[in-house]
């Protein structure tokens, strides 16, 4: 079952040399994307060193389960690369590469260009970057790739701060959240600025397909990943992926918080296609935000006026 394993030319049992991978699952060339299933047999992202209860890893795993094995993955410097590529433990079982922090989208561009040059058909070029890697340092490359119409899938797993470096504020950190660079002090109560609206920024490029998602709605997310895969051109999915370490929540609350964000109206599930925005999930009645805030230490310091301001941000 296990054998002594030398990396020089040897391929481990999880990646058998010469074994044909791919097949019908994820093969969009032959089946319509809506009929393509979820790859139950093969784990694409496993054995990583992410914290227990990590939301970002759920976003990565589900997308790759939906895309199948004919993929080329790029992750920038950040949580997913730090936990997934610790030599010799390689948690991605598919082709994968770490890019520079700012270079997710541009590396995807290059991979797609090379795939075109090699005549590779029915392959997906997909990137997973955090909110800092997307909304801050990587936004220039992302904008360029979308504007050029490169056929890439860009997935931003949003945990609302720079978590890999130890919870620093990003432009996607919401109002009021305490981070190590926007701490809740006696004078300033956490982040005083609002969350950057990446979905609208991406939509303003008139991208063929963009969506928001939440890890608490896996079926909605998988459907959106498949739509992205079927898009002839760039696609963007921004998925809310709570971080228990950075949000100060219990490990088992990761999915619950991603659900509460949607149920309170703080995070909307929507799509942009053909120039139009469509809500894909509308809660029947919006829950009050208090429970959502209470479960997270990063909001514990908020005063009544701050809570009111968070409420006002719900559109």
């Amino acid at each position, binding site marked *: 079952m296990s054998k002594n394993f030398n990396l020089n030319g040897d391929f481990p049992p999880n990646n058998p040399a*010469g074994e044909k991978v791919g097949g019908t699952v994820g093969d969009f060339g032959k089946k319509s994307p809506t009929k393509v299933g979820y790859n139950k047999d093969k784990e694409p992202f496993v054995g990583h060193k992410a914290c227990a209860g990590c939301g970002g890893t759920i976003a990565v795993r589900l997308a790759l389960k939906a895309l199948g094995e004919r993929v080329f993955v790029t992750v920038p410097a950040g949580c997913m690369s730090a936990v997934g*590529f610790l*030599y010799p433990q390689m948690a991605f079982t598919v*082709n994968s*590469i770490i*890019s520079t922090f700012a270079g997710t989208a*541009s590396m995807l*561009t290059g991979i797609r260009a090379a795939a075109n040059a090699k005549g590779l058909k029915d392959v997906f070029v997909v990137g997973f970057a955090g909110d800092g890697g997307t909304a801050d340092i990587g936004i220039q490359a992302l904008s*360029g790739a979308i504007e*050029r119409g490169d056929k890439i899938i860009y997935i931003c797993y949003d945990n609302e701060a720079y978590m890999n470096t130890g919870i620093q504020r990003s432009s996607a950190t919401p109002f009021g959240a305490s981070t190590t660079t926007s701490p809740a002090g006696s004078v300033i109560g956490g982040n005083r600025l609002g969350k950057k609206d990446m979905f609208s920024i991406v939509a303003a490029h008139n991208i063929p397909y963009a969506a928001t998602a939440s890890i608490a709605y896996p079926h909605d997310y998988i459907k959106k990943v498949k739509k992205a895969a079927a898009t002839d051109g760039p696609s963007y999915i921004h998925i809310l992926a709570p971080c228990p370490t950075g949000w100060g929540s219990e490990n088992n609350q990761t999915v619950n918080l991603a659900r509460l964000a949607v149920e309170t109206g703080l995070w909307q599930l929507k799509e942009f296609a053909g120039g139009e925005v469509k809500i894909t999930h509308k809660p029947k009645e919006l829950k009050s935000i208090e429970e959502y805030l209470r479960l997270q230490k990063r909001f514990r310091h908020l005063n009544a006026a701050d809570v009111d301001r968070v409420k006002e941000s719900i559109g």
Partner: protein
Amino acid sequence: MAIQKFLSGNEAIAEAVKLAKPAVIAVYPITPQTTVVEKLADFVANGELKTEFINVESEHSALSALMGASAMGVRTFTATSSQGLLYMSECLHYAAGGRFPIVMMNANRAVALPWNIFGDQRDSLSQLESGWIQLYAENAQEAFDLTLSSFAIAENHAVALPVMLNVDGFALTHTYEPLNIISQEDADKILPPFKPFFEMNLEKPLSLGFSAGPRDNTAFKQHQINGMKAAAKLINEKFGDLVDAYKLENAKYAIITLGSISGLVRDVIDELQSDGVKVGLLRLRSLRPFPEEELRSALANFKTVGVLEKNLSVGAENAVAKEIKSALYGLENAPQVLAFSGGLGGRDISANEIKDIISKIIGGEK
């Protein structure tokens, strides 16, 4: 079969890139490199070059895209200069550490501030430790030849390192010369199709760009050093030596240069030698790999050598001079090494100034 064409240095490089047929080219404009990628764009627009031609949004993205393409096992090219080279500095280290055989032309240009678009070598010399092979051309013909060589060096399996081909801004990039442009058939002999040493593929998925901790990191760096050593051997064997010695045989004094100024230095040496002055030229064609052995054997019996570089190390001896001093260290009666900065921000270096430098070398003083 070669044909003669009247071309600028940049156009010559574009012609060579066309012959090399990279699968992916990433382009971003910056003076004085821009006419390389403009010419390539013309080739693509007119169907003379079939390639994936990407207009990227920055130099950082240019190299980032090429690393992605290179990871897929295809030949890649880009060109840059000055601020652009510095903007991609992170990617320079990344590409070398990742062993991506990218070829990049750098039009040597001054670095801001103050702003200056003219030629000097401060840009590439500030990136000596990025792990790239750094070659320096003397004239447009050499720039053409070295472009093809650069691909062959980078793509050699023992080397597997990116190559930066440095060409003096304006002096070479924009000056027209009659050039020998070899045929596609001959180019294919110098540069066979790229056979990647690793590539992401669907049969054997790979993980690239991984983290290697304190235990493992050094081993990968040692492999990188071995790649650079292999490059030195390969260049000396096949691509015209790391150094170019001119009239050094009977000389006691030498001037060491790199890039286009060497042409004028040759003329001055011709003149001085005919007057009986024992001075010769040693031109560095490669700074990485650094020609340490070559320098030690060529300069062993010299009294004084002077290093003229279009560079300035503020607060220390100039970069190239310092390296030459280090290379000669420990030789019995090692020559004295004098450092000279010249041509900063495109400032002209006259024949008289070179004579001045040579007389300082002979006088053994700064």
